[in-house]
């Protein structure tokens, strides 16, 4: 895997999808606007021109049925990818995902499988409000029979998408909108990023920061601020949320003895709760804490929105406190150009 090129997260998704469609005739992509000129941040742009309308098509606004139709096509031997511009709309698909996709293999004792990929964009920019910003990865982590991935880097976006398409199980593929412009080195060829394997993105010794999707970038930025005051933070990107790489997180926890889980979602019954429960059961003498959305719907106005989400500053402050630092310390303003440069409208 020596042929690397520098592309962004959105381009990495496009490339993984394109190459796997070339590789496997049974792969098709559908969803609202997937064949329009924007092609969902370019991730599905013009695929219909290359592969034909039956393999990349627009749909009626029928999320419930279109999920079942994907499941049915998967039962029939195809590998559908259903693209959602907002994960909030997955609530219209829950019956199909939970009652059918997750259970058909089990209820048929392994005769059938549902190799369906559901791509779901989450996240803030500005002003997305209560119904256009939510991340529901924890809802799906609760359901046996469904896998969940939330890659942060372009490398993992491409590799996870290819692995998701090839997987026999339904996969929820979570992609944060503020990651699309993230640039990184990505192998040119087809490759898979394995389910259930996380990554240590930055090694450290004093505290472990575990993020989810975009909050991984908050953790990375926080770790840089912490470094300036002499704190060595280890940053873990779990990549795969179901299954979770518990071993990797435990190993880091046993080294640093302090773990701060920064979820990209609410805390009750969430990813952070799950990880902290595992650490509480399987490790000893740890200092554990968690951050995530505040316990409210997401407010629209920017000034409240900024307080609703974790930020590099709030993560750094909490981590510093956990490490015994001055609770009045604040890092200098940490720039997030992808948010600051966002001007809408979508």
């Amino acid at each position, binding site marked *: 895997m020596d042929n690397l090129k520098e592309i962004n997260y959105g381009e990495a998704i496009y490339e993984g999808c394109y190459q796997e469609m070339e590789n496997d005739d049974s792969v*098709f992509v559908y969803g609202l606007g997937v064949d329009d000129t924007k092609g969902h941040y370019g991730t599905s742009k013009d695929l219909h021109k290359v592969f034909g309308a*039956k393999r990349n098509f627009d*749909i*009626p606004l*029928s999320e*419930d*049925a*279109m*999920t*079942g*139709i*994907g*499941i*049915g*096509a*998967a*039962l*029939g*031997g*195809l590998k*559908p990818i259903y693209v959602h511009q907002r994960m909030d709309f997955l609530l219209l698909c829950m*019956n*199909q995902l939970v*009652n*059918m996709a997750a259970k*058909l*293999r*089990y*209820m*048929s*004792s*392994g*005769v*059938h*499988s549902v190799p369906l990929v559901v791509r779901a964009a989450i996240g803030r920019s500005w002003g997305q409000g209560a119904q256009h910003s939510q991340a529901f990865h924890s809802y799906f982590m609760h359901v*046996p*029979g469904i*896998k969940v991935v939330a890659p942060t880097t372009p490398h993992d976006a491409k590799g996870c998408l290819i692995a998701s398409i090839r997987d*026999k*199980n339904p996969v929820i593929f979570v992609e944060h909108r503020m990651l699309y412009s993230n640039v990184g080195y990505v192998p040119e060829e087809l490759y898979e990023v394995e389910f259930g394997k996380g990554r240590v993105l930055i090694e450290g010794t004093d505290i472990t920061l575990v993020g989810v999707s975009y909050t991984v970038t908050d953790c990375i930025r926080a770790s840089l601020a912490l470094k300036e005051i002499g704190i060595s933070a280890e940053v873990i990107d779990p990549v795969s949320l179901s299954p979770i790489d518990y071993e990797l997180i435990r190993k880091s926890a046993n080294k640093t003895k302090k773990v701060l889980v920064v979820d990209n979602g609410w805390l009750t019954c969430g990813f952070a709760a799950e990880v902290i429960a595992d650490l509480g059961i399987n490790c000893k003498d740890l200092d554990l804490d968690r951050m995530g959305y505040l316990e409210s719907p997401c407010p629209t106005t920017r000034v409240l929105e900024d307080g609703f989400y974790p930020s590099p500053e709030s993560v750094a402050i909490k981590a510093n406190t956990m490490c015994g630092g001055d609770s009045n310390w604040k890092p200098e303003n940490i720039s997030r150009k992808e948010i600051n440069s966002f001007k809408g409208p979508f």
Partner: protein
Amino acid sequence: MKKFDVKKAYSLFYLIRKSEEKIIELYDTDKIKSPVHLSIGQEPVAVGVSLALDKKDIIFSNYRGHAHYLAREGNLKEMWAELYGKVAGSSRGKAGSMHLSDWSVNFMTTSAIVATAVPEAVGYAYSQKYQNNEGVVICYHGDGAVDEGVYWESINFASLHQLPILFVCENNKYAIYTHQDKRMLGDSIVSRANSFGLKSFRVDGIRTEDFFNAANDSINNIKNNSGPILLECMTSRWRDHVGPGEDRHINFRSDKELNDAITNDDLKNLESLINKEDVVTIQKDIDSQINDAIKYSEDSSFPGTKEITDNVYG
């Protein structure tokens, strides 16, 4: 085009009726430890439609699926063992009556949530068209299913993409005990479906042959690229929504309504069309098949608890 085979129709009808009656007989023993939704009264639809099908056609049914399964000639022993929760069952006891399947005859795992497998049937039809496969998809559902939004979303997509699928609406008029009149204005499911561009017909017959003829024409048309078709098959559920009992004590329908349906039982009609010796032979053969299947189920073992977490993921 297929011809109506009265002997075969009688044989399948008798198999369904006797199997359901055996379930009623045995239910009090509590060997079938799960809900059953019996098909008695609705056999003419299942038998008529099944006789019009080819091996390559694919069946999507629902929780009231015994008749569809048996009319498709799904494995009888495996069905009984599944009802008994035994390892020899079609899904090793993990499905039971509500999620029956037999993929050797293209009978897909059924769902217990009303209308929930309808989009799956449509998606399967999309995959058939995508891969240029021959089989037509049959989607059985009840009149209750048309109350669900997902039903019309699915119909819309099937119509939009002109998919090879036959919707068979078994209209027994009741969602549990709630009459269609309490659930929609007017009783025409056909006209609603027509407005989606779906060719739709009501089959008001009580005879298996009526349903066969309608299905036979429809399947033939779909194979000649007519696009999807809906048959609204008027029928009657004789037993309670769930369980082995009758439901007259609930007083949600008149005795006359049910008595009329029972008087018109097409099993008796089909029997009258076959010579007596054949009737005796068929009955004897099927009775013995059912007894064998029950014995097979009794003798089979339960799955080990280590199987609980098998096949969650592939």
